[in-house]
């Protein structure tokens, strides 16, 4: 801890209570980005403050209706956009991710690589998952894992299987002979058919992610041993499905993953 750090410590209580001037707030926020100790202390102060403000009030009537009205018509199924701008080094995204989480990330386009830059990213963590998913796909392709499963009997098992022909069929492959098939029909109904997926471990689960038109979105969570995982894709976006990935996460799952996929596959 430095003198620079100490300059901010006394402000942390006031900052956590929104009791600092705008210029001080800005300075503290810049400091918090690079100081996990101070960030943790602010979180602790806010947690304490939350105990001071419970006033036993009922939720206001009518406000939920106004909120719900803002949510409809149906929310967009995707949350980020990307713009292709050039060629890619297949390993660059992993290096970029390790060195600068906020840097532009690499992503494989259909058939050829393309460097992509998030135009209006929602968060660094979503960008990280995009990078991870893209990098995993690149790496898996580079070592020939995509051939895995092509000759296997991939007939899904279980009761909730697609009854119409699949518009999209993707083989997901990973280490330790892990594999799965993702199928999406023209109505957007999708199923991940997994093969002998091992138990995720105590307190862990698997999370399925889809990349559609450059955007990564969580499609659901499931346990090891699950044969068929249903999910849904916006019917208007089925033709834009690019890839799927599965990560292992702590229950109940995450909004955006920081983990490498245990398996992934591209269209």
């Amino acid at each position, binding site marked *: 801890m430095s003198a620079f750090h100490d300059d901010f*410590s*006394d*402000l*942390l*209580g*006031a900052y*956590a*209570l*929104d*009791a*600092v*001037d705008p210029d001080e707030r800005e300075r503290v926020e810049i400091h918090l980005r690079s100081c996990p100790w101070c*960030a*943790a202390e602010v*979180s*602790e*102060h*806010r*947690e*304490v*403050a*939350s*105990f*001071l*403000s*419970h*006033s*036993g*009030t*009922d*939720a*206001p009537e*009518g*406000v*939920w209706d*106004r*909120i*719900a009205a*803002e*949510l409809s018509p*149906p*929310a967009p*199924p995707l949350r980020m956009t990307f713009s292709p701008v050039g060629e890619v080094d297949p390993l660059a995204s992993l290096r970029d991710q390790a060195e600068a989480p906020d840097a532009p990330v690499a992503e494989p386009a259909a058939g050829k690589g393309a460097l992509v830059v998030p135009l209006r990213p*929602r*968060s660094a*963590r*979503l960008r990280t998952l995009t990078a991870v998913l893209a990098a995993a796909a690149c790496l898996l392709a580079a070592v020939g894992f995509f051939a895995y499963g092509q000759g296997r009997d991939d007939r899904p098992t279980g009761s909730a299987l697609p009854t119409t022909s699949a518009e999209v069929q993707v083989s997901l492959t990973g280490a330790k002979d892990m594999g799965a098939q993702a199928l999406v029909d023209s109505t957007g109904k999708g199923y991940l058919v997994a093969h002998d997926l091992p138990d995720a471990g105590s307190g862990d*689960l698997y999370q399925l992610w889809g990349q559609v038109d450059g955007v990564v*979105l*969580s499609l*659901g*969570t*499931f*346990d090891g041993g699950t044969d068929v995982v249903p999910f849904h894709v916006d019917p208007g976006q089925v033709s834009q499905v690019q890839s799927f990935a599965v990560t292992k996460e702590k*229950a*109940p*799952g*995450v*909004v*955006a993953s920081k983990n490498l996929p245990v398996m992934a596959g591209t269209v």
Partner: protein
Amino acid sequence: MNTPLGETSDAGLVVAISRYNQDALAEAYRRHAGAVFGLARRLLAEPALAEEIVQEVFLRLWNDPDKFDPGRGSLRSYLLAQCHGRSVDLLRSESSRRRREEKNLRRTAEAGYDLEREVWDLTVADHVREAIEALPEGEREAIRLAYLGGHTYREVATLLDEPEGTVKSRIRSGLKHLRGELVAAGVSFGDDL
């Protein structure tokens, strides 16, 4: 994996919200909107403005669910921090400054107003009340004026006729003392449903 939303943890609700599950947002609203509204109304005194804050806070959760980090605290404290920040911004806007000053004059004259009265709806309310009572007077007043009065520490220093550095330190040490008292009383932090 199909846990009913009513039994889903707050962190699980936010994951579902990130998948555009409106029922999950409704459940989060059912759990926490009362506390958010209570804080906004306490700060702004105008129910209509407080309702706008509630609407804004939950729409922000819908639009930016990844801003909530369960590793950094509970969903309730996150929503209340959002509510407090937005309410204070409104409170400090030029248009409301005069109204606020008038309101503060009335509050000063109100008998029995104190920080302890703000806490009463939790099973841990007794512990919280005792922890607040155990605070040195200077720390309690500094936190009350900053958090529930919406004042900056500089304004608090003026109101209490104390040096700014003293008030700044008292807010921080008071929050640490509160946390210590609550932990000693068995109150756990960072929990959600």
